[in-house]
């Protein structure tokens, strides 16, 4: 008996890379401004880098200086004009007019004592929360930088923080994979949940796996992303995302996105076409750009062409930008370029059209 013809499995549309932007330094985070005109990014050179997307050809324009160390986090004000940036030396800054002539609206040179690990802005754009290596979690007025609330002496090192859209709670994720819910105002800890697997200890090193917290769906879902570390000293972890039912604080769904060499989820964003865009970075050269539908465990798109992806952002028009690392970024000893110089690595920015778009790659 002849086999019945198999139904043709329609391959879901994939994002297409349109063009690539160059950045001579390594980036940690990239975002589109609320108006959509500018791509802003921060990283190892402590300056806010800007690319004007409305110019005839996308070009980098003047940087915004003022930070030190690395820019560790950067977010834009929803529906507003401010860009909030934090660095590893403790400076928190709000920059106005970043799409035109930027000026610093306010800043705190020592918002934290040292590395600001995470920054989250409320949905209404009026408040932001920061968490630092100093064990403090602070809520600030986005408008003028006033300190509104503070959780002092967090019992462990915070890696990630998020503010609930209703501004009634903040949630922290620490080095040991523990989630803590704090009431606002007051800052009282009202609950703890341990995400098993998001911490690893060996050879005097704690490896934290809970690196990113994000509220979604009007605060009904809390996304806890990072990885399940398997070793110390190297980025050996299985990239993992947990979706938590926030009112119950229970894991509703988990996706493990790769093998242990793929490392950690470094960034994610919800795409208006109804899927999650995720980037991961693991061992040198190992990066993933994934698209994942809600409730699914396997991505419908997975590109490993880019090396060590560290950030992504979704533009209002659906385009996605992914910051990656240059190839062959690793090497023992004094690896030199063709001219004999010992050069820093850098972060190409890959701009993709959303899946299903018929936009063509830009030549050259």
């Amino acid at each position, binding site marked *: 008996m002849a086999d019945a013809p198999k139904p043709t499995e329609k391959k879901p549309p994939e994002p297409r890379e349109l063009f690539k932007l160059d950045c001579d330094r*390594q980036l940690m985070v990239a975002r589109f401004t609320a108006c959509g005109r500018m791509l802003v990014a921060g990283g190892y050179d402590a300056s806010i880098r800007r690319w004007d997307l409305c110019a005839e050809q996308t070009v980098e324009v003047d940087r915004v200086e003022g930070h030190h160390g690395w820019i560790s986090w950067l977010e834009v004000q929803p529906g507003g004009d401010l860009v909030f940036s934090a660095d590893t030396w403790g400076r928190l800054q709000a920059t106005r007019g970043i799409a035109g002539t930027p000026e610093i609206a306010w800043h705190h040179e020592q918002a934290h004592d*040292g590395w600001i690990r995470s920054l989250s802005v409320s949905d209404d754009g009026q408040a932001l929360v920061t968490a630092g290596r100093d064990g403090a979690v602070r809520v600030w007025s986005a408008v003028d930088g006033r300190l509104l609330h503070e959780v002092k002496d967090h019992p462990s090192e915070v890696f990630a923080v998020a503010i609930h859209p209703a501004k009634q709670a903040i949630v922290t994720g620490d080095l040991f994979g523990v989630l803590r819910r704090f009431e606002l105002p007051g800052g009282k800890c009202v609950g703890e949940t341990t995400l098993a697997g998001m911490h690893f200890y060996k050879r005097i090193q704690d490896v*934290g796996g809970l690196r990113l917290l994000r509220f979604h769906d009007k605060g009904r879902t809390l996304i806890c992303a990072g990885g399940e570390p398997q070793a110390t000293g190297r980025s050996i972890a299985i990239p993992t995302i947990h979706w938590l039912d926030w009112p119950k604080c229970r894991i509703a769904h988990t996706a493990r996105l790769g093998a242990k060499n793929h490392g950690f989820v470094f960034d994610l964003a919800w795409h208006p076409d109804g899927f999650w865009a995720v980037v991961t970075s693991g061992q040198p050269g190992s990066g993933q750009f994934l698209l994942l539908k809600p409730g699914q465990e396997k991505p419908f798109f997975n590109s490993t062409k880019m090396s060590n992806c560290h950030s992504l952002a979704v533009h209002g028009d659906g385009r996605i930008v992914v910051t990656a690392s240059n190839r062959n970024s690793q090497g*023992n000893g004094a690896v030199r370029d063709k001219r004999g110089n010992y050069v820093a690595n850098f972060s190409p920015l890959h701009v993709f059209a959303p899946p299903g778009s018929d936009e063509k790659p830009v030549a050259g």
Partner: protein
Amino acid sequence: MNHCRSWEHGWSRRRMLGAMAGGAGVAGLGGILQPAAAEEMARNDKQILLIWLDGGMSQLESWDPKPNTPFGGPFRSIPTALPGIHVSELMPKLSRQMKRLAVVRSMKTEDANHSSGVPKILRGQPRNRGVTYPYLGSAVAKLMGPTESGLPPYVWVKPGNGGFIAKHAGFLGAKYGALALGDGKPPANLVRPDSISSAADAARQELRRKFNRQFADRRRANFNEANSYVYDVAGTLMKHVELFDEAKLSEKDRRRYGTHDLGRHALLARRLIEAGVRFVQVTSYGWDTHGDNFNSHASRMPKVDQSVTALIEDLYDRGLDERVLVVMMAEFGRTPRINGSVGRDHWPNAWSVAMAGCGIRPGTVVGETLPDGTDVKTTPYDIGHMFHTWFSAVGLDSAEAEYMNGTQPLPIAHDDMHKVDELLI
């Protein structure tokens, strides 16, 4: 074509005497120098404690920070007790100890691989003469012998398994190997069971020695010497079982050193040194931070900061700084360039070593790297320079002392290198 130097052929009276001493197999210090020097060395009460950060600690996240430079990383630097000198913010406690420390920021070595780099550094990378040189601990065990305590001269406190590690001794012979205490635990069955009386135990030991002598008659001396030595070491340790009784540790000490492996092992090292072990090495593994270097160091460095500070404080408080040399190092540093995995790779080109105590000039920073940390700016120093310096610090004249490998005299440190006078009192 290899050109022999005069050194290989020179056959001074001193070397002749050394060769004779070696041939005669003088107990303990046989094989080095004249008997008079050997006796002098036996009276030497100097000791060495090596903290080995296996895999390669980053100099940029420790002794030689370059904040706000292209390769500087995310951390700040902080001032130290030494005016004008800054270290990484990850070492606040050690920063306050800087007047007791000496740091070399201009280490420049050759090997960027672990497998070959570790033995080269621990052997002092002498010139290749076709022999396998001993690790520093074995060298000291040979050159200085046990202290009057009679405790084994080379004890290695390490995570994982223990045992007797003969290969560290190289050409010196197995007995100069390391007695490794896995996780700081004593060798298994160290304590005589109650069911065996002291007299019965002595009779058993005598029987063992008799069998050993019979066995040795038909075999190479080195092998049997090492075999007997291990038993003798166990016997010596049996008299010091309190060293391994953690219940006797004060809560204050546990807290000061830390309850993590490095803290526990550093505290044991202090106790071993106090008890009279000539050379103690404490190893911490996992420093090969090719990925996630900064989170790794953020987690690791505070533990180093805590336990090494406690150690330095105790050595000074107890007056041991005058007889104990402490060295902290790895096989290399880490690249200034940060890879895509947010890690740093292997970097022998410009890294740092720290030391304190016996013979070392406190509050010294030797050498300088370029502003971006990519090379040594001042006179570079290799591990051979450090071996000369450390030997000199504990009273060994490395320009004169020699090993005897059979009839072959060998320098104890690289003969093209020299001690670094700036580091020495």
